[in-house]
């Protein structure tokens, strides 16, 4: 919408970012321009925002405030909390009324410029203003100030609502995006399973070849591998039992043992009491894998992995250790920082999984001393 005021194109109210500007604009549209006495609005930065240019002859003859705006003492503004009344050197009464937003004065309405009764007596042909008229002008100015305040509140509220609308819109869009992501994830998951169908049929073929060739060891490896695929392509965001997680790790370690043979020693100490507890799906194996990918990187000595899972009171204490490359104190500190950084890799992903499942009720930390590097976990036996 194009809005014209006095023949000049102006912004329409809804385009004003500043509610005060919007209120002033509304005044220009109203009949305040036509009032017989001057009306002005100053911003808190002393900018003249509105002026109906109805200065009395006395002003125009003596000060010409429109031309010498800065010289005219009446055009000086002082931000006061209360309404002010003062008399100019030529006997005009000026009223300053603060426009308050959020409790403080943030603009000023100036008006009046009527002849003070005491001064009027000396001037020819001028009737002093009746007290009631004087009072009427003051009331009128107060009402305008109140009106501006109302409008400012209105515009502010409307702006807030519009921001909320935008937010809601964004949220709506977010929900829609999430929903369609979920749908495509579901499709992807089914697609994956269809593709896995091919994979598992091929593995079945290899398994049959291994058996016909009397390669039982190869057959077992193929079965382990396919069990790993099956498990890791399972319920990606769900929970599992600790026993299932441990079985998965066992299969993984069996495959690694195949690769490393006698070079790899595996020690386990598992308390049967924690078999049935619910834990985040696939939280254990990545920690063990981490030991291989970091602990045993370029590490040629005998490799040892130790898995301890013990019940202590109402908690399960899990420690996964390797005798591979040690990490110095600065490295451990850095790892701890990375854990909580929300990055999409390694141990910090595990940290996020645990955080999602247990909130603040878990601990995860790393130690590297006495030839062992260990990832420690402490988790509650019960999930809330």
């Amino acid at each position, binding site marked *: 919408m194009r809005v014209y005021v006095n023949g000049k194109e102006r912004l329409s109210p809804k385009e004003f970012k500043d509610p005060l500007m919007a209120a002033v604009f509304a005044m220009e549209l109203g009949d305040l321009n036509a009032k017989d006495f001057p009306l002005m609005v100053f911003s808190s930065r002393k900018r003249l925002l509105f002026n109906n240019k109805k200065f009395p002859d006395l002003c125009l003859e003596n000060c010409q405030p429109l031309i010498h705006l800065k010289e005219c003492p009446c055009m000086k503004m002082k931000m006061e909390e209360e309404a002010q009344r003062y008399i100019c050197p030529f006997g005009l009464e000026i009223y300053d009324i603060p426009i308050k937003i959020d409790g403080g004065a943030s603009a000023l309405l100036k008006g009046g410029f009527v002849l003070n009764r005491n001064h009027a007596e000396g001037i020819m042909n001028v009737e002093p203003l009746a007290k009631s008229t004087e009072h009427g002008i003051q009331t009128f100015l107060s009402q305008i100030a109140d009106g501006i305040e109302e409008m400012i509140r209105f515009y502010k509220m409307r702006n807030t609502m519009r921001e909320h609308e935008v937010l809601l819109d964004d949220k709506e869009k977010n929900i829609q995006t999430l929903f369609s992501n979920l749908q495509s994830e579901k499709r992807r998951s089914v697609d994956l399973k269809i593709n896995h169908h091919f994979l*598992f*049929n091929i593995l*079945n073929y290899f398994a049959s070849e291994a*058996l016909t060739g009397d390669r039982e060891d190869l057959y077992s490896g193929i079965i382990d591998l396919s069990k790993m695929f099956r498990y890791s392509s399972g319920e990606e965001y769900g929970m599992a039992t600790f026993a299932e997680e441990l079985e998965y790790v066992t299969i993984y370690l069996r495959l690694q043992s195949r690769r490393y043979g006698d070079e790899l020693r595996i020690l386990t100490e598992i308390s049967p009491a924690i078999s049935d507890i619910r834990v985040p799906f696939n939280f254990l194996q990545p920690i063990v894998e981490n030991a291989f990918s970091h602990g045993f990187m370029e590490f040629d000595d005998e490799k040892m992995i130790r898995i301890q899972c013990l019940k202590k009171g109402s908690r399960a204490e899990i420690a996964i250790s390797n005798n591979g490359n040690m990490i110095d104190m600065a490295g451990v500190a850095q790892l701890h920082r990375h854990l909580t950084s929300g990055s999409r890799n390694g141990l910090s992903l595990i940290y996020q999984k645990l955080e999602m499942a247990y909130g603040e009720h878990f601990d995860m930390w790393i130690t590297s001393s006495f030839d062992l590097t260990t990832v420690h976990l402490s988790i509650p036996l019960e999930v809330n």
Partner: protein
Amino acid sequence: MIPTILIDDEPSTISILKHFIQKEELPLVIEGIARNGLEAQKLLSADRTHLVFIDIQMPFFTGLELMEAYGHHKYIVVSAFSLFSYAHSALQLGAYDYILKPIDRDAFIASVERAIGFQFHKHPVINEVMSYLKFNYFEPCSLSSLSGIVGMDPSYLSRLFKKETGKTIMSTLHEIRMQQADALLKTKDLDVLEISYKVGYENINTFYRHFNRYFGVTPAERRNTY
């Protein structure tokens, strides 16, 4: 030996199943192999109950369709799909198990045990006797006929069975018959006389006697509790 049918369009599956049946000396005898739904249909239309290993996705008919059409066999589904909907349908159609490809030896053996209703014994002869009894309990049966079937001296077979299982062959047979009779009492389709014939007793008094010894009540009393 338990008559067995293998149905799969993948030769590798047939090969693995055959390998395990031989290697583990399971009391299964392969009576037919089908490579698609049409061939399978011919084999499954036999009246005699078979143990059937069956794939789901096959040319002409799916395994699930065949299972629905020929409900009198004991099925074990072998599939590469771990889709819940498939497993659910298969089990609803009465499949004893749903095993995944590539076929894991332990899962395979457990599924057969589940289907034939007893755990495999290390002694192949015991497995053979057990599977004969499980599949032919309704036939007239004696120690001498059994010893003929497994090819072993009757008194030796009798002692071996008692030693390995702690029970005699005949008490094991009556036990299987009682379990079958109990299942039939539950369905309430047949009267007691019919049930008696169906599980292998020509003389109803013998049936009553064994029933009372096994359950401690008469067949009618037991049916009333269902």
